[in-house]
């Protein structure tokens, strides 16, 4: 389980931090359609377009590879913290966890420490 998570996260950060540099820079499907059909010019700059990581590059870092890679890693780490935190908070507490608590209740204390 731990090993699976470590390998999975390593692959994800490798994609975001290094492989993304080699991604196709061509317009994506929707951008292409907007150009082709003729509504591309209705797109407005996002209000976050001046942010430090806007367009997957770090403001002030000139090297494209480094700039894009850092932005990717920051973004992936942010997603990991937010999504991981949210799903961890929502999770069902398992029966094994409950029985461990009842087992530990003999020597009391721990549960009441937070009061």
């Amino acid at each position, binding site marked *: *389980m731990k090993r*699976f*998570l470590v390998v*999975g*996260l390593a692959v*994800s*950060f490798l*994609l*975001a931090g290094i492989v*993304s540099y080699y*991604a*196709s*820079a*061509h*317009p*994506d*499907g*929707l951008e*292409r*359609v*907007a150009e*082709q*059909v*003729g*509504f591309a010019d*209705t*797109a*407005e*700059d*996002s*209000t*976050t*377009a001046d*942010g430090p*990581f*806007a*367009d*997957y590059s770090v403001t002030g870092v000139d090297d494209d590879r480094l700039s894009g890679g850092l932005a990717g890693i*920051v*973004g*992936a780490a*942010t*997603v*990991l913290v*937010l*999504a*991981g*935190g*949210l*799903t*961890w908070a*929502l*999770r*069902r*507490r*398992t*029966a*094994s*966890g409950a*029985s461990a608590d009842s087992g530990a209740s003999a020597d009391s204390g721990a549960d009441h420490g937070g009061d």
Partner: protein
Amino acid sequence: MHVPDGFLDAPTSLATGAVAVAGVAIALRGARRELDDRTAPIAGLVATFVFAGQMVNFPVAGGTSGHLLGGALAAVLAGPFTAVLCLSVVLLVQALLMADGGITALGTNVTLLALVAVVVGWLGFRAAQTVLPKRLASVPPAAAFGALVSVPAAAVAFTGLYALGGTAPIPLDTLLTAMLGWHTLIGIGETVITGFVVGGVVAVRPDLVYGARRVLATRELEIRTPQDPAGATS
């Protein structure tokens, strides 16, 4: 397929915002049933992988690229309700941090990529599962089929929204044809990536794949030994 600000008018953006809020609220309730100590970390990993995967655009044809949407992938790996939350977090971070997808368009993007792509991807997966043999080996191709249908579905949904509140007078049949054409091609990339990733996870840890639970259920019953009588109901 991240919609920027300006493509859709304010009423439509407000409406998709309301749909997105309702969808995420339902997912917050539903995801509680899918998440436990074991699957919650997997969900965090799935969201991170989808974010990373969306950064790697692949060329499709004629100077056009596409990238993973990850709706079907996340639904099969983490469960459909959890997948809605994963994709919503990805889209939120992309909009706020990366300026990828507009801020007023966030509701639209959540509706298209976190709701339509996930729900259609999951239904496509389940439909394929009912047709394919009930084996572990059927999970990756079923996931691939879900991915295949999820991308054109999101493209059709965008066209529908554009019909309601597009800011430029575009003939709808022209738009639909162009959206479906490109996104069917991009959907093939989605299919390949989803099939390989789900196949890889099924090969090493099938027990961590939400969509494989039905297939694994009988096998799991054989492995478990009743140590804790109180936990027998779970």
